[in-house]
């Protein structure tokens, strides 16, 4: 199949950017989207044009490195699929496909389609952990955890930190990412001692970088791991509670 690519090219974060058109001819529908881009890039390089920079790594949908706005949709048309797992069979011969970087104030463009998502790391550093110095852990089976709680924590922990939720949100809010980590840790018994400080710290860090959530739900739709927006409700509940929680009694109540 033959497709046309309309690609955002931007030399660096302070340079102006613009769209360029490229031909992607003779493409197999069984190629992944990024394999198609590899081929375009190899042809560009051998033809004397600097290749399109895009972030990518594992190509298995788990590392969260890739992320392209494809025809205005974060990670493209297929639900529950990261860009690297999208295949050309989702497109038709003759299509013009628009490729843009994530667009969000908190994610400045580094070059072309690659952005800087380190704001996510700042949120994590503010409280996205359970404090447990190496070697100080009790036997793992000393803390029984109801299977349902462990499974729900795992649902939230499946977040790959790709940033599609932010890119899809009209407000560039970071709620789904933050909520997923908070739910993962706040649902587990091990996460209780730091629950309320963690919630306040992570939400505060988030608000330094990201817009506000107004419940559009675009994030859930765009999420390649289909993380539920219900976790945002949990974030809101825990954040409201955190403000009034009597920390002296925190160990005695969930």
């Amino acid at each position: 199949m033959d497709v046309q690519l309309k690609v955002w090219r931007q030399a660096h974060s302070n340079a102006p950017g613009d769209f360029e058109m490229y031909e992607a001819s003779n493409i197999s529908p069984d190629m992944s989207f990024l394999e198609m881009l590899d081929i375009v890039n190899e042809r560009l390089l051998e033809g004397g044009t600097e290749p399109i920079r895009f972030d990518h790594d594992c190509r298995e949908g788990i590392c969260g490195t890739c992320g392209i706005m494809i025809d205005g949709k974060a990670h493209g048309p297929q639900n529950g699929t990261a860009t690297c797992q999208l295949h050309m069979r989702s497109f038709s011969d003759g299509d013009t496909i628009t490729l843009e970087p994530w667009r969000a104030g908190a994610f400045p463009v580094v070059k072309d389609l690659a952005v800087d998502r380190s704001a996510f790391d700042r949120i994590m550093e503010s409280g996205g952990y359970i404090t447990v110095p190496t070697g100080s852990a009790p036997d793992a089976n000393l803390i029984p955890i109801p299977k349902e709680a462990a499974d729900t924590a795992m649902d939230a922990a499946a977040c790959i930190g790709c940033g599609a939720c932010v890119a899809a949100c009209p407000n560039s809010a970071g709620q789904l990412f933050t909520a997923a980590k908070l739910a993962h840790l706040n649902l587990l018994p091990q996460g209780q001692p730091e629950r309320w400080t963690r919630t306040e710290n992570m939400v505060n860090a988030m608000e330094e970088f990201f817009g506000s959530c107004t419940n559009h739900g675009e994030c859930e739709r765009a999420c390649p791991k289909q993380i539920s927006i219900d976790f945002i409700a949990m974030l809101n509940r825990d954040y409201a509670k955190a403000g009034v929680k009597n920390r002296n009694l925190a160990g005695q109540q969930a």
Partner: protein
Amino acid sequence: MELDAKIPEGEITTLWGQHKFNMSLVSPNNKRKFDIIVVGTGLAGASAAASMAELGYNVKAFTFHDSPRRAHSIAAQGGINAAKNYHGDGDSIFRLFYDTVKGGDYRSREANVYRLAEVSANIIDQCTAQGVPFAREYGGLLDNRSFGGAQVSRTFYARGQTGQQLLLGAYQSLARQVGLGNVDLHTRTEMLDVVVKDGRAVGIVTRNLITGEIESHSAHAVVLATGGYSNVFYLSTNAMACNMTAAWRAHRRGAAFANPCFTQIHPTCIPSSEEFQSKLTLMSESLRNDGRIWVPKEAGDDRPANEIPEDERDYFLERRYPTFGNLVPRDVASRNAKNMVDKGKGIGPLKNGVYLDFATAIERLGADTVEERYSNLFEMYERITDENPYKVPMRIYPAAHYTMGGLWVDYHLMTSVPGMYAIGEANFSDHGANRLGASALMQGLADGYFVLPYTIGDYLSGMLGDPVVPTDDAAFVEVEQDVKDQIAFWMNARGTRSPDYYHRQLGKIMVDYCGMERTKEGLEKAIAEIPALHAEFRQNVRVLGSSDDFNETLEKVQRVDDFFELALLMCIDALSREESCGGHFRTESQTEEGEALRNDDDFAFSSAWEWTGRPGDPKLHKEHLEFNHVKLSQRSYK
């Protein structure tokens, strides 16, 4: 170069505990006087950086990713082994140790492996306390499964995303230390060389991938946690950016490289489709617990799987290995699949796979149970192939996956250069000639959480009061200039072909001659072809753009250049090891039944290669292996 493994004297079961007492300590208020560089932030690097920062050392961590959470440890699916014996099925530290040495086909160091088995239980405790959501039973306790040929259930897992959850646990601990200011984290920064002064590692030279800036960093010790080199085969299950550059440049600065030919081919990957394929996707080995592997009995049988009747199918692993069946170790499963394809019994459009069939499991357990166990893997498979594994059998084929070889390290995980350590997949230490399933995560975290933080103190304690070598020292200036000269060389490369073009050619040579089966003739051919292709590559590769920029071609060209030199060493190593063991199968050395035949009289050693300045002419040092606790036997999985 003198290799001293520094294995302490004593009874193996108490060796590590006793040795921890015997090593020198750095007192808590002195730890802040030491700087440590950690390169790589995967399982091993992140856990080491976090643990050492908690202890009080000043840690500088480096990753070429945009965040530590991207490291390829994240893609490990199946699980992590630990000798917890939670299921009361007869597991013990000694059994995990025994299985690992045997599974590695008796080419690993007993003392290291015993220590690994010993600390395995601590890893599960540590990770659970961090909030890693391991799978649980309804009673709330941890679930285990049997994995990759183990006869006990000792594998802990978090759905099919165990590596992700363990990495996030380590990353979160690291993030905490970054937030506290104890770790200085450099992202999108690639190590391009290591600086050695007066025989000690004193720092590294890096390139900022976004600005292109070349920088020097000094420290009292340098830790490489930079992963393996499966991407030398071009197509592998490794992530696109996985490379050998950091470890290779350490090798060129004096670190011995051990057992480079010990590579693992994973039996259950999605077969490659066409030339454009950029990487191969692993389907967790856990699928072999419930899936049955078969091919048609007749070569060239073109009927769809569902139309081939039961008695015309050959469940070749179950037939040849009645005890272990589909759960034979990886090297055995891989080679058998290759034999079937070589006999013309391969399936799929390119006849390059074998079936992995879940029909029996769905009948026995119900689709719901199968879905609960494997849903994410089945979805991933369907997304890639457009085929539904609940209805038609999966197609699988072996692919390069893990490298047991790596930088030679002693019992302290120190390389042959004092002050330079290698941990995780980057070292060669624990898996011998073949790694057991679910043991990579175990080793990465054992090294990072529970070994290096102890052993590094023994080295540092002798340097109390010594300042770091300043980065304007001649040693740094010289290495920096080297790095800049190399980059200038590549920026002038105005040939015609991309680095990928040559990487693909190199990969093909390696798959053909240094892959699942190796012969003397094939290896000699590869040793002749690789330098010629390497020369053409240096002559004819094309790099565009600027070196002061986010330039992927420049990154890639240097990595491919290092792969060429490594590939040559792998073939030399494979040629010199005239025996079969584990993942290294020399056609000339096999039993009557076609199994790997070791030669313990002549080859019970690890090959540690010293860089001589001339690629293709390395110097061999042998570390002889002694087995006092495990009886050497021909592996049999009948």
